[in-house]
């Protein structure tokens, strides 16, 4: 082949086949300082991996919640690993407020990018569609706008009398999620948790821990296919049973409310949080 036909257009390296690794190896593949996409509690959250990341001493994360966060985000904040937090809300659900989050806000320990759920989705959608921004209705008149340099009020190009917000694309460097199942080819079953599909499409890389690995292709079952994240979006898979404990996993196991309450009680103080993190392991 002559030079003219090899010089340009080479694969850009952003895309690879899926690696199968251990949870410990996966943790080593997530560096400090990145934009990290995470799932809401109970729908893809992975507190077990968050613990491993904290033990490894991960720092300076820009965390993107899809579109809200729970216990696993509060743990990362408590460990001082979060520099920037982009979310519509953080809470422990029925249990109440997220204690480390509230403390970090009060003490000014993180940069807060407060959003609203559909604006987070709009930002992720922009990344997934490869456009720099997305328009979204609402928001105008909200104080959220004042603190978001990545949002702007513009005119609707087809009706200049309408003001409308545009939000910038949100592209996580890595997203880390937990799912019920992957197959040996790297396809991952998400079911109707389509927001996790969106997160993976929007992210440069997606790392997935799963309850189990199927030896047959999930795409061979036409019933399942619509809820399967194809392997091309999945950089690595690790089998890690019960890794969503105590936050629960959609269609697999429920929230362990008592354990989340234990956490909430302990994390009221920095000392209590540290004691909880060193004292508790997992239900597995």
């Amino acid at each position, binding site marked *: 082949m002559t030079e003219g036909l090899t010089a340009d257009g080479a694969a850009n390296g952003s895309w690879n086949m899926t690696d199968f690794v251990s949870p410990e190896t996966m943790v080593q593949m997530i560096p400090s300082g990145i934009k990290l996409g995470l799932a*809401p509690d109970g*729908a893809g959250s992975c507190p077990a991996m968050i613990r491993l990341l904290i033990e490894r001493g991960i720092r300076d994360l820009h965390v993107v919640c899809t*579109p*809200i966060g729970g216990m696993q985000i509060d743990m990362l904040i408590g460990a001082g690993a979060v520099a920037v937090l982009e*979310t*519509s*809300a*953080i*809470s422990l*659900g*029925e249990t109440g*407020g*997220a204690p480390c*989050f*509230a403390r970090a*806000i*009060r*003490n*000014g320990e993180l*940069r*807060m990018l*407060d*959003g*609203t*759920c*559909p*604006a987070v*989705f709009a930002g992720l959608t922009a990344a997934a569609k490869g456009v720099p921004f997305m328009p*979204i*209705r*609402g*928001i*105008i*008149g*909200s*104080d*959220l706008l004042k*603190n978001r340099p990545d949002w702007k009020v513009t005119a609707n190009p087809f009706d200049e*009398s*309408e*003001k*409308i917000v545009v939000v910038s694309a949100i592209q996580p460097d890595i997203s880390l999620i937990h799912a019920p199942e992957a197959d040996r080819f790297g396809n991952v079953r998400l079911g*109707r*948790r*389509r*927001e*996790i*599909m*969106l997160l993976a499409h929007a992210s440069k890389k997606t790392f997935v821990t799963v309850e189990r690995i199927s030896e047959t292709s999930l795409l061979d079952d036409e019933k399942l296919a619509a809820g399967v994240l194809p392997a091309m979006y999945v950089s690595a898979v690790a089998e890690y049973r019960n890794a969503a404990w105590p936050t629960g996993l959609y*269609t697999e196991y429920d929230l362990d409310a008592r354990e989340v309450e234990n956490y909430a009680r302990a994390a009221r103080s920095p000392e209590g949080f540290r004691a909880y993190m060193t004292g508790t392991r997992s239900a597995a």
Partner: protein
Amino acid sequence: MMLECTNRELLIYTISRLLAGARHVAVGMSSPMPAAGAMLRRALNKKQGREDVQVSILGSIRHNSFTGGSEELFECAAQGRIDAFFLGGGQIDGKGNVNLVGAGGYPNSEVRWPGSYGSAYLYFLVPRVILFREEHSPRVLVDQVDFISAPGVSEKGVYRRGGPHALLTSAALFSFQRDVGRFRLESVHPGRSAHEIREMTGFSFDNDGCEVQTPGPDAATLALMRNQIRTELAETYPQFAASLPEAA
């Protein structure tokens, strides 16, 4: 005929009245009273041979027919397929602004709440947003919120087909008058007076001498609540359902 009912039953019944005519009611997570009110509306319509009511309870698998992830609620609202939704808020002010973010400064709020969730969007797009907060105090119902998660009214040039419809607390029911951007006291719950409501409210409102008492459910409706609704509710909110009175 007026019956003895608990305050929570009165609120659930009032929510069902506020939902009259709605065909798709969405209820946020951790909102057992709005869910109960929506289920009651659905049951009442069925009994009366009126239109079907769809109730979508976020976070529920059984009472939630969305198949497109948590994004679908917002798209559905934007498409005009959701008639009513509920919002709470750490603070609600007299202009209908809600604050779900925090009190005492921003971003380093002294008191920080979870965050705005979908409020900054749904408040613009759902025709009938019912503000629901049991606590009725000057701490919650303030003259001006510390942070506007979502504004009660919008200027011209901003697309808005939704907004506050009513404000319901454990003590009173207000309507929201979109033309003037103010609340109007519609009724006072049994055991309260308009004077008390004025004292308990941090903002000024119209019809502040209101003498209407919030009506409670009739016997048949109360029986429905204590049987069918209580059972339906238990699927999603077992603890809350157990706390409601049971039919004799």
